[in-house]
């Protein structure tokens, strides 16, 4: 078992890559009451086209299938796994994102037993035609719930206006129509291809003993057999640098219009350290200009173009990246115009050495604050693991970033053709 000590933050991680390919990382924290465990596969809604395990031809699966599979993995021939966790005092959950499907539990008791349950249920699928059909009604209501959420609709609308071909532009849960086509065989095909241990990570943080835990996991895994390791052949369509649609307008039952400006990344660095640095540049730059003390935020605020719903975010994944700046806006066109002008001005902008040092300080404090949460640590670990980076190295990498690097990035970041606007306006306007 490999042991990594991170002295400044006072944490120790135990790591092991098992013979079957599974990556296991343990963060024992005896001072906590609970343990949070997450078992994730590097597979999400964007994995639409691939060569199935053992096959030769590329196939295309129905939209929303990764999420559908996530729901169905909880149901076994004779029971629902939620009840197993319930009996063992744990609360279980799962989520599907663009690029990850994760199963998790948190508990304060029966930690070894609960971890076994987590591993075993994920590694023992049972899909039947009847149960697949039954799930369609439940997921249809989940989709309809999102249909009525203006914030989600404006988020997905912005994604769709940015990306022409990349499957990030499909809804994670699919549509009420697309999920009707899903069969139990489709689920097995996806499961067999993407739930191989080689494609998965198990991360556990909290109150447990690392040796006992690792031994249990090793025993559990060596007792099971898996198909031989094979590279997963996924394919993503070519995506132009320019956005798909400069402006998208949707109507919903809302009282105040919403507007988001989306910035599509031209490319994503593949080497782990370069990837993380890009991630940090985006974060620092957005923070400098659009956090509540930032000059661009102040400008928008003073002009009365935004309200308390203002937000910004950036996302960088292995094969796509974007940022969003959005708000409820009485004058959505003025908002969009102003934000785009601000962004375009960045090619001649400069962040001073002093400001940069302050931004770094702020970011370090924020990382430490977020490390209070076992959920956050675990989810971030999984997220960075997918690109081959160790989350606990984030502060040292951040410390190595220079103002010069940031400014070089800043001046080349924005191009008009990579900006998109999505507006949601009240129905009767």
């Amino acid at each position, binding site marked *: 078992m490999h042991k990594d000590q991170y002295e*400044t*933050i006072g944490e120790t991680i135990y790591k092991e890559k098992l013979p079957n390919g599974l990556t296991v990382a343990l963060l024992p924290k005896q*001072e*906590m*009451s*609970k343990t949070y465990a997450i078992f994730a596969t590097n597979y999400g809604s964007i994995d639409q086209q691939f060569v199935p395990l053992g096959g030769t031809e590329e196939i295309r699966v129905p939209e929303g299938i990764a999420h559908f599979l996530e729901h169905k993995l909880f149901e076994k021939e004779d029971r*629902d796994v*939620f*009840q197993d966790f*319930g*009996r*063992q*005092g*744990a*609360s*279980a959950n799962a989520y599907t994102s663009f690029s990850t499907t994760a199963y998790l539990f*948190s*508990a*304060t*008791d029966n930690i070894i037993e609960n971890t076994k349950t987590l591993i075993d249920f994920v590694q023992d699928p049972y899909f039947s035609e009847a149960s697949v059909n*039954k799930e*369609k*009604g*439940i*997921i*249809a*209501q*989940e989709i*309809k*719930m999102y*249909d*009525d*959420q203006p*914030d989600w609709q404006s988020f997905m609308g912005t994604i769709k206006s940015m990306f022409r071909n990349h499957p990030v532009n499909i809804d994670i849960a699919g549509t009420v129509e697309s999920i009707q086509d899903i069969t139990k065989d489709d689920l097995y095909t996806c499961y067999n291809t993407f739930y191989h241990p080689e494609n998965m990570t198990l991360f556990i943080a909290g109150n447990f003993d690392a040796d006992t835990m690792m031994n249990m996991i090793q025993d559990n895994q060596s007792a099971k057999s898996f198909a031989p390791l094979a590279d997963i052949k996924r394919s993503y369509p070519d995506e132009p640098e320019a956005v798909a649609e400069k402006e998208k307008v949707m109507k919903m*039952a*809302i*009282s*105040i219009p919403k507007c988001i400006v989306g910035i599509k990344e031209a490319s994503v660095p593949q080497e782990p350290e370069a990837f993380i640095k890009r991630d940090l540049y985006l974060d620092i730059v957005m923070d400098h200009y659009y*956090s*509540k*003390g930032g000059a661009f935020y*102040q400008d928008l605020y003073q002009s009365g173009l935004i*309200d*308390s719903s203002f937000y910004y975010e950036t996302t960088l994944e292995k094969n796509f990246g974007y940022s969003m700046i959005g708000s*409820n806006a*009485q004058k959505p066109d003025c908002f969009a115009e102003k934000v785009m002008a601000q962004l375009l001005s960045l090619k001649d902008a400069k962040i001073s050495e002093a400001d940069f040092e*302050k*931004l770094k*300080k*702020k*970011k*370090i*404090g924020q990382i*430490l*604050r977020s*490390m*209070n*949460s*076992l959920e956050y640590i675990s989810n971030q670990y999984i997220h960075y693991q997918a690109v081959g980076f160790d989350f606990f190295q984030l502060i040292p990498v951040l410390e190595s970033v220079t103002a010069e690097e940031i400014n070089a990035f800043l001046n080349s970041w924005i191009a008009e053709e990579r900006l998109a606007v999505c507006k949601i306006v009240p*129905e009767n306007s």
Partner: protein
Amino acid sequence: MKAVEEEMYQQEGTHIHLIPTNKFKTIHLIAKFKAPLTRETVSKRALLPYVLRQGTKSYPSRAALENELDELYGAGLGIDGGKRGNSHILSFRLEVANDKFIPHAPNMLDAAVELLKEVIFEPNVKDNQFDEDIFNRERETLKQRIESVIEDKMNYAQMRLIDEMCEDEAYALHVQGYLEDLESLTSSDLYSYYKQLLAEDQLDFYVLGDFDTDQVKNKLADSFVRKQHGSAPEQTSEPRKQISEVREIIEKQNIQQAKLHIGYRTHCTYEDAGYYALQVFNGIFGGFPNSKLFMNVREKHSLAYYAASRLESHKGLMFVFSGIAPEDYEKARNIIELQLKDMRAGSFEEDILEETKGLIINDILETLDHPQGIIELLYQQILSGKHAEVDDMISGIRKVTKDDVIKAANSIEEDTVYLLTNNGGGEDA
């Protein structure tokens, strides 16, 4: 060892609570001001967090205040209002990284106490009123917030249920305030109310984290001096509502999914002896994924993605909520009623009773891993006037018997059914 160490003492009209713990990488300061929920004060208390967050005497703009927070390694400052039973609580929260984890950092705790003191007691005031521009701008922000309540259908339906169910009771007041009250409010009115709040509200001040208790006490004695003494009028109790028949309210909007919210009177609050049994009842009925509502409305009949129940523990209410297809209203309502009937008749297994107790205890213990969670849990005692250690809560839950749960189920009264549906669904109200 006790689950949570809390040292409490009085200092100049303030209840100070010190919670030393080494679980977190941060230190948390939370000041809670409590007063009765009234129509006269609710909009002012709703607006205050917005205005106060924009600056202080020494940091008179948002940018200046944010800059100061950035200098404190990205400290997080939040001010918010909420209702608990018939009380309106205004909370000031400051979270800073513990300087233990940052080489060469200054003493963050002292700086944090100074800053929070400034935010609370030294607002940006000129000529006995808040800065006029900030006041006007923030009033607009709050108005937009009020107008956008309708966007989040789940919150909107819940608000509407309470409007109808608790008509003429303080609990129905909207903590986000009222447009018509804001219209006539002036900046000097607001400041004179704030002075009154500082003088009269009950103030509880919490410090949580890894710190030296004596050092904090000295610091607070030196600088957190409240000149005034809390003397807020006590809550007046309201007569028990007589329910002659269940009211049904149906409202229509252009939406995809109907929201069914049902309100009940539990006649049992946090300080009552029967509260633990009520918690267990709620858990079995609709609190967890193995509950009757989840298993029947969702898993058995595929009518919904979510179907759950929740307690309001200081007013004595229970709510059931579910998102369903408009045409399934009657069916869903019947299934929900049947579950309650089953509970009243004792038609549930001992197993589920024990499982549910385990899950509730797990929830309590997990709360202890969240800094804000610990403080909120302890603040329950202030709100209810009942002192209960975490260990007392756990043993209280453990002792609940099946008969206790049946008794709790039978003391619950259905009050109002609220349905938000689309133009095709439900009958006319």
